């Protein structure tokens, strides 16, 4: 049976006041047919539907964040530094046609068309916790498949130790890259990186959709990664290149503020950000702060990747 978000979320939480109104109107319009469709119609991103099979093995127990919140409260500096910039200005990004170059220390470097990427493996839905370095969090049903599937296609060479992700650089599509009167924000293009074993980990998701739909522009269309045990900025969006290397790749936030954003940036309540505590977080939609979990609750699955490492040093 296919689960809906309305099945895992109490409706009270699921529908905001405004959506309730819209939902009531929609129900009235379809003659009070109480099938889930009307609810789904008001609670989905504006993008096309994207079918995926829920993977019960990867599903946090907490109810998903309201889609309205997940698509309007975004850090995506390519569009601007304010949380609502990506959803307001996202229209300039053209997610089709789109290509992703996968190269570096691989036996079979290749450029993938976004259509090919969509068909490389069966799409699954996974409900992950997302923890932002700014101490807020969400729960998001992503659609995609393990990044390992794509990486195996190009056959990493034995010397490959790291993976570098590059986001599109195009000020015409990303107004935030133009740089204002006072100069730019980050050093474009945005790059992020993982160790190869982190990239190959089954939790690391090559992501093409969310909430049953294609990724909206403000969430990193058309293709991004999601690494749920790391702070959100590690999960590169709108990726155009994936490069395998033998040295640790430079990463955008680390270059901007090295003492604050390390290469690893694993969610860790015991290692504070220099300016604030990472011990607690505010789950969007909840009033009180909640305790942040080690590796964002994924310790069972990923702690072994860092056995013997001093996580205060490798923050």
């Amino acid at each position: 049976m296919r689960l809906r978000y309305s099945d895992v979320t109490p409706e009270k939480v699921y529908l905001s006041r405004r959506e309730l109104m819209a939902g009531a109107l929609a129900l009235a319009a379809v003659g009070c047919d109480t099938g889930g469709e009307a609810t789904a119609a008001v609670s989905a991103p504006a993008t096309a539907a994207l079918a995926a099979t829920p993977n019960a093995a990867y599903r946090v127990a907490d109810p998903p964040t309201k889609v309205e919140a997940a698509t309007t409260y975004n850090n995506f500096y390519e569009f601007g530094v304010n949380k609502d910039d990506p959803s307001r200005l996202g229209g300039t990004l053209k997610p089709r046609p789109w290509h992703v170059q996968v190269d570096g220390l691989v036996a079979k470097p290749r450029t993938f068309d976004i259509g090919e990427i969509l068909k490389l493996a069966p799409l699954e839905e996974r409900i992950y916790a997302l923890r932002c370095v700014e101490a807020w969090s969400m729960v998001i049903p992503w659609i995609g498949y393990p990044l390992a599937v794509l990486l195996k296609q190009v056959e990493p060479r034995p010397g490959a130790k790291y993976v570098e992700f590059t986001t599109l650089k195009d000020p015409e599509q990303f107004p935030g890259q133009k740089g204002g009167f006072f100069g730019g924000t980050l050093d474009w293009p945005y790059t992020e990186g993982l160790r190869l074993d982190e990239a190959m980990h089954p939790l690391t998701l090559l992501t093409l959709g969310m909430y049953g739909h294609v990724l909206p522009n403000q969430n990193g269309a058309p293709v991004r990664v999601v690494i749920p045990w790391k702070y959100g900025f590690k999960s590169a969006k709108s990726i155009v290149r994936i490069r395998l290397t033998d040295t640790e790749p430079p990463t955008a936030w680390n270059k901007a503020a090295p003492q604050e954003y390390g290469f690893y940036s694993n969610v860790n309540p015991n290692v504070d950000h220099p300016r604030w505590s990472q011990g607690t977080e505010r789950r969007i939609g909840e009033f009180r702060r909640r305790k942040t979990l080690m590796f964002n609750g994924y310790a069972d699955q990923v702690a072994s990747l860092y056995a013997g490492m001093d996580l205060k040093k490798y923050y």
Partner: protein
Amino acid sequence: MTTRGRVALKTVVWLVALAPLAHLLWGWWTDDLTVNPIEYVTRELGQTAFRLLLATLALTPLRLLLGVSWPITLRRLLGLLAFFYVTLHFAVWIVLDHFFDWHTMGQDIAKRPWITVGVSAFLLLAPLAATSTTGMIKRLGGARWRRLHRLIYVAGVLAALHYIWLAKKVLVQPWVYAAILAVLLGIRLWDAARAFARRRQALARDRIVIGSRG
């Protein structure tokens, strides 16, 4: 300036200064305070407080540069409005953000410089608000009162540090506020230096006059 003009001017200040609060209350009523309301409200209150603090500090430079002194009549009102927003900003942090978790807040004050300076700025402004009445000015005496109220300069600098430290380094806005503060304080320094030089010149002139007599 006529009494009527002064009343009109103060009414405008009241309206403009309370508009951000009205906007937040309206947002609360219509459920439109972004999806992270506590963060949003804290930021809006803090920014408004800083703007009003800068407005308070802009009145003397106006007199020094343009020779207009009537804005000074707004100083107490603007200062108190700034303190009002600082208090709300602080109250939201205690009540909504941490819900009286004194232990965590205490740790934050001790460990995080931007919170330390923020709380310090609030504590420095409190006695200024408390001594803002005409009766208190009389009780303290003009000179002592003026000296005490120079603490607003320190509070301004602490507020700028608070904002710069809390924001991501790539953001411009905190530096804009700090730059405006630097200009407003710089004009005062320049004026003080000018007055000092004038006094020295006058002194030197007197000495020459005395000398020539001998």
